[in-house]
């Protein structure tokens, strides 16, 4: 299973599961990263962390250590316009 941390820029993935519990997980999910949501990995910050993803039509930045707890699978190409 892939985690969001391993996804290179420019790819679109679908969230399968979010690991962990408590405040960090809740915050990630509150921001719209829930099971089945599509994420487009837009870029990595100049110093290598955090990453910027597009979720539910807006831009969100999160740290790689948090991205590691988000399990994803690649979305078929056609879904990303």
């Amino acid at each position, binding site marked *: 299973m892939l985690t969001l941390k391993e996804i290179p820029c420019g790819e679109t993935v679908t969230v399968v599961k*979010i690991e962990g*519990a*408590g*405040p*960090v*997980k*809740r*915050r*990630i*999910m*509150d*921001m*719209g990263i*829930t*099971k*089945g*949501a599509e994420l487009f990995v*837009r*870029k*990595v*910050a*100049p*110093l*290598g*962390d*955090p990453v*910027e993803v597009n979720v*539910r*039509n*807006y*831009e*969100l*930045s*999160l*740290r790689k250590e*948090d991205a590691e707890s988000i399990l994803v699978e690649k979305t078929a190409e056609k879904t990303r*316009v």
Partner: protein
Amino acid sequence: MPLIIALAGNPNSGKTTLFNALTGSNQFVGNWPGVTVEKKEGRLRGQKDVLLMDLPGIYSLSPYTLEEVIARNYLLDERPDAILNIVDGTNLERNLYLTTQLLELGIPMVVAVNMIDLLQKNGDLLELDDLSRRFGCPFVSISALKGRGIAEAADEALRRAKENIAPAPVHSFDDRVEAALRAITAELGDEIPAPQRRFFAVKLFERDEKILPRAGAARAAESIERIVCAAEEALDDDAESIITNERYACIVSAIKSGYRRNSAEKMTQTDRIDRVITNRVLALPIFAAVMFIVYYVSVTTVGAFATDWANDGVFGEGWRLFGLRIPGIPAAAGSALAALGAADWLSSLLLDGIIAGVGAVLGFVPQMLILFFFLAFLEGCGYMARIAFIMDRIFRKFGLSGKSFIPILIGTGCGVPGIMASRTIENDRDRKMTVITTTFIPCGAKLPIIALIAGALFDGLWWVAPSAYFVGIAAIVSSGVILKKTRLFAGNPAPFVMELPPYRLPTAANVLHSMWERGWSFIKRAGTIILVSCVLIWFLSSFGFADGRFGMVAELGDGLLAALGTRVAWIFTPLGFGDWKATVATFTGLVAKENVVGTFGVLYGFTEVAEDGAEIWGNLSAGFTPLAAYAFLVFNLLCAPCFAAIGAIRREMNSAKWTFIAIGYQTGFAYLVSLCIFRLGLLFTTGAFGVFTLAACAAVVLFLSLLFRPAARAPAVRTSTV
């Protein structure tokens, strides 16, 4: 009893713009009790007894962040008469997530879809009737920026408040979840009124610890736990996540028919700007350039001019307006007092105590307003979030936020606006940490002290001045690491999950409003502490025992302060400068750091000395060893800042306890660092070894152990003090 409408919404949804538009200038800005979160109220325009309460910008009603807990407690305890929920129409899905939670509170509510102008321009679909039906609550469209539809939105909220029409939430979750919620509802205490029962049921399902005691369901805790566990097993997820998933699923299906973005253009304006601004190569140079402009304008050029005008002109020797000479306030007041024949002590109190004190407060204001103007612009246009994005990697290592860069940078000019600039940091812990460490960096007023020591004792040696900055940066970094691990700052790790809002050009009205609001809050809240402290120091330095009786003294050396300095000079003996002159200079440095040089001048018998105190270099080099002088320098750089900065710390911390913690930490840290420098320096240069050398070694061991120990265990929940 006025009607109260609470304004709720996500950050970046245009909430502040709407609030300003609806209330005009009828605003009261303060803080929520005991915390650093701003609280704003205002009277609704054209309505005598309708109050609009601006809740903190939040994404959810979870129990984990300070702002969310404040908003939740307010909504539950104060029960406003209506909620006006503003949502960003260009980001509807995530904005409605908060809406679904607000709806469950059973408070009359109107949803105002903001940025309708942008939606129309894009050709997006927005069916308000359809959305109203699907969420069981009226949806209206507004443009807060252009003022379109806002009066109608407020009127609708007012009507619903007066008639007490609670929303009828129709969004429902998965059948298994709904069954569990029904079962929990049955266990709730009878004291929970019908419209709120769903809210409590959902919160109990989520195992929200802060709600448990309110729900009147303590005796049913076990059976509720069984219901929740069964649902978790059935849906293979934890309860909190089940609810979050269900909410988003509801929203996606509810807006299917009423909302569609015209997705012809995928590359938005913001994406194009960000390709450059947060580009891997260009981001840092652009950041450096932006910081340079902010610093250059607000600290060195316009800012310095404004401060000089205020300090040396209005509160100094006078200034010129179109060739007309306007006397400074002290001179004008002085001649007025002399004309009135006021007693010496009275004119001294007014001139040297109060006017000098007020001047110390107001002198900072022009420069601060310029800085706040920039900050409001950077926040409003969306660049501030990018700063955090770019700098996070570096700053989080020592417990600060990427946004801490700005306060520290501004702090090199003046610590007061630097501390006030920490307001842009959302996270409470990062903000407190930034406030505590910002004044470690040498500010403009500390430069004369550096020049004095470097000139008098080190013959202008090249590394002395830069080393002051190095000491400052090292103090910030090590304090960040040390404090991060203490119990005070332990707690749930604050997740850095941050929205990067679209770039928007902020309106002049909003920028000026924010600039004025922050400037005014400094004058009001910081002003008192600065004034009182200045009057106290004035009293101590101009009264004393001379010729056997107590009264006003002409010489600083005869004053109470000098007596006090002589009594307590032993405190600084371990640091190598246990001399009453140095002690008194350190005390007067609290009024303004540049006073340190002037005080030395006076105490060595000069009436006036140059800014770097060149006249007294000889006296100093006779009285101090270079090592002691360097310890003195470091102590004065790191210890409690001037009263103006202490006032700013008090303002930003919004708590006497935290102000004492900050000042105490700074002074204690300064003392130990100076001790180590002097005693260990002495050991290496002369081989002198004594009790204090041991103490210094102990301090080093303590320092290293604090630096490298594991972090303190988190107390239950970080926001439990709320």
